[in-house]
């Protein structure tokens, strides 16, 4: 765990520090909605995936989806959090055209999941812990389209009623990079668990960012006492849907708050929107409209009681989690923290690596997977499970290096042919005659010929041993790069009398 200096804003009156908390909305990867039997699929015609419950028709009653409850519990376990065996659904009341019921069914006082922790990994491999405040289940709203007509707003309720897990962190993040790293780690976790597909482009995972600024030292007082009055007033930036925007929004918002405070002003606790085009945040709601959601328990829904045996059964289905997997890859295969980190970002990557590493040098397999394969895949916009090279062939390639059949340099060439779909590495090496020449007779013959043709170079090399490199190059050229470099060097040393 490494402590890192928080992000600082240099003001006219001194330094300011950032305090950040995130609310991440993760769409549950379910077939049907949270309280109705309508489908959740993306890209349908408007208002096709809508039941009369989702459209808020009078007299329609919600019935909760068991699978969604299970995913919330599973995610709770992934966050090492307390599972609340009794939780309650409340109505959050507000009016907006894409909220046909006039309220959102959410959980206010008694969420399904309580406090937990997420260990976050930064890009450089260092780690820090973020406290989780809670996770609750709630309905998504519909979508308002404002640009189809100058005078009218178009409303599509396909998303209305889709299950969301709102995951609320404690205000434990201190820099834009750490906030992005938190979202990244959380995304990896829900993808491992299979509870959310983590697709930020489709809006299936999005973040509200709470930003406040304070003087150095105040955060430590807050951490020691839990007293929020040590911190500044926060603003909430709604629905930021990429890692880059999260960071941009925070940087802008911190600067804005510092300027207000240094001019002697006060921060209004409010909801703001991030405009990616302008790179700035702006106020969303006017003050006289200050939100008063008037939460109360939804009379249509009884409290959600979880059978302890069911909760245990859910826990038993948990896969190996990313941090445990990273540690195992390091200890079992001797990988560096960085390589292990790259592999565990996607469960499928780690699976691929483990398949490929069976019985061969794991470090070499990791190099081929993380360097060659992943960069090719990302260039072609492919995921690892779409790789044209099966994991066994990466293992096969490494086996050929290990038994001296090919050099690592030739292996890269073989890899290119594998990528081009020419089949298994052994077959490619055979068909293309890429076998490493370890036959000293053949190497000697090549060296003799080169020495005979270049007496001046021979003299030069005897004077200046560094010039031997020229000979190595020539031998490689003569043998099509297949000569064993160690053998070439050794024979050259002898023949040149160095």
């Amino acid at each position, binding site marked *: 765990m490494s402590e890192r200096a928080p992000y600082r804003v240099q003001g006219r009156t001194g330094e300011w520090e950032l305090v950040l908390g995130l609310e991440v909305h993760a769409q549950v990867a379910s077939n049907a909605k949270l309280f109705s039997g309508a489908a959740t699929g993306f890209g349908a015609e408007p208002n096709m995936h*809508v039941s009369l419950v989702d459209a808020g028709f009078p007299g329609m009653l919600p019935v*909760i*989806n068991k699978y969604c409850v299970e995913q919330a519990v599973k995610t709770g376990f992934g966050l090492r959090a307390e599972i609340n065996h009794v939780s309650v659904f409340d109505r959050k009341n507000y009016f907006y*055209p894409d909220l046909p019921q006039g309220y959102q069914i959410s959980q206010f006082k008694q969420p399904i999941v309580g406090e937990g922790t997420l260990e976050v990994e930064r890009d450089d491999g260092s780690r820090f812990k973020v406290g989780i405040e809670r996770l609750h289940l709630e309905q998504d709203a519909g979508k308002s389209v*404002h640009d189809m007509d100058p005078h009218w707003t178009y409303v599509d309720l396909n998303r209305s009623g889709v299950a969301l897990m709102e995951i609320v962190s404690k205000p434990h993040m201190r820099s834009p990079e750490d906030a992005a790293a938190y979202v990244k780690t959380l995304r990896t976790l829900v993808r491992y668990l299979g509870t959310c597909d983590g697709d930020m482009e489709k809006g299936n995972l999005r973040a509200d960012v709470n930003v406040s600024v304070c003087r150095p030292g105040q955060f430590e007082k807050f951490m020691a006492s839990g007293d929020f009055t040590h911190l500044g007033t926060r603003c909430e930036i709604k629905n930021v849907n990429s890692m880059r925007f999260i960071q941009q929004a925070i940087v802008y918002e911190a600067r804005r708050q510092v300027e207000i405070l240094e001019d002697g002003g006060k921060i209004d606790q409010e909801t703001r929107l991030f405009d990616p085009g302008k790179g700035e945040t702006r106020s969303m709601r006017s003050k006289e409209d200050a939100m*008063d959601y008037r939460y109360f328990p939804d009379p249509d829904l009884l409290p959600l009681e979880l059978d302890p045996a069911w909760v245990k059964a859910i826990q038993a289905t948990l896969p190996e989690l990313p941090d445990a997997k990273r540690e195992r890859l390091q200890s079992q295969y001797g990988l560096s923290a960085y390589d292990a980190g790259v592999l565990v970002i996607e469960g499928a990557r780690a699976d691929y690596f483990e398949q490929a590493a069976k019985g061969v040098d794991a470090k070499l397999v990791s190099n081929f997977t993380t360097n060659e394969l992943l960069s090719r895949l990302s260039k072609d916009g492919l995921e690892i499970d779409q790789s044209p090279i099966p994991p066994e062939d990466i293992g096969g390639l490494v086996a050929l290096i290990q038994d001296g059949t090919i050099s690592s340099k030739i292996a890269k060439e073989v890899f290119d042919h594998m990528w081009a779909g020419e089949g298994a590495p052994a077959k490619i090496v055979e068909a293309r005659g890429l076998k490493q020449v370890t036959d000293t007779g053949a190497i000697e013959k090549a060296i003799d010929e080169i020495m005979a043709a270049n007496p001046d170079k021979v003299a030069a090399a005897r004077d200046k041993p560094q010039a031997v490199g020229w000979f190595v190059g020539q031998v490689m050229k003569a043998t099509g790069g297949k000569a064993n470099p160690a053998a070439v060097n050794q024979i050259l040393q002898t023949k040149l009398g160095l």
Partner: protein
Amino acid sequence: MAIDADTVRKVARLARIRVEESALEPMAKELTGIMAWIEQLAEVDTDGVEPMTSNVAIKLPLREDVVTDGERQGAVLANAPRSDKGFFVVPKVVE
């Protein structure tokens, strides 16, 4: 609990119900009376009594994750005062 005209104005606004200025004061009086009547319940000692959430002994029923509904755009839009290309159409809302 006494309810004043300002509270009535605020609640009416939150509920999107129009209440004429002249009706605020009488309604405040009426609501104060209703609240006082309900507050009699507070006289009952409920220490150690679990809140009752239902008068029938059933648990929250759970549904399987199966698509059983939807695909009824026509019915969903049938009562909409205005619709176009499958969307509900409402007066412009600006954020």
